């Protein structure tokens, strides 16, 4: 039970962090100028967004939960199981970021999730 709770925290907060960060970057607008000065300006602007800080906080929570989980659960279970990120990410992108996730993209994400689970499975 504790293992699945922490796994859920890892997957949901990790994906939530990415989604909040994506939202912060999208609100700031497409980056077109890649000079160091312009990029510094972009990140200064984004750091004023509450979404960016929420994203950062959720990413840290996911990392800490992963470390805690790895202290008792087997890597061979934890790492492949986090491939669920790809499915949860697709759901979050569709409903929270309002992206048009086509059938092809769902199929691709399922293939990637299965592939990552297989590559990460330790024997």
């Amino acid at each position, binding site marked *: 039970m504790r293992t699945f709770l922490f796994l859920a925290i890892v997957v949901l907060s990790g994906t939530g962090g990415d989604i909040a960060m994506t939202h912060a970057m999208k609100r700031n*607008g497409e980056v077109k100028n890649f000079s160091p000065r312009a990029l510094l300006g972009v990140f200064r602007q984004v750091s004023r967004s509450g979404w960016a800080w929420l994203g950062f906080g959720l990413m840290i929570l996911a990392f800490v939960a992963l470390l805690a989980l790895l202290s008792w659960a087997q890597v061979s279970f934890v790492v492949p199981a986090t491939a669920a990120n790809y499915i949860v990410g697709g759901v979050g992108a*569709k409903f929270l970021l309002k992206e048009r*996730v086509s059938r092809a993209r769902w*199929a691709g994400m399922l*293939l990637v999730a299965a592939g*990552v*689970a297989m*590559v990460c499975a330790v024997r």
Partner: protein
Amino acid sequence: MTPPRNLLAKTIPFLIMVPILGSLGNVLLGKGMRGMGEIRHPSVSTLAIYLLKVLSNVWVWLGMGSLLLFLVIYLLVLSWADYSYVLPVTAVGYVLAPLLAHLLLGEIVPSSRWVGAVFIFLGVAVVGRTPPSTTGRG
């Protein structure tokens, strides 16, 4: 918003750099941390000494620099491309580790990992055929 064809041309170099920098950062950090040893009796003084030792290692700094660059590029590409596009496409990094381990270190990689790598490539190819942005934002 950049036109779709230009958007793809702009997105691809960034998506190539993301998994390379991520994998490189992990390898460099791993190389740096390998020689650090284990903390057996944690106390404030031993942790401080350990931290100083870690921060005086050039490989750790190179790894952190690479991971920082990875994060910056990942966030930049998310300013115009869909999260549901970037997330699966950058999973190609999972293929790099067994491939490099096999080619550079001569490690024997189990067949299930190669099958997984094929699944990832197929998934990336399928997602890569969809437009990078569907929201018109960015």
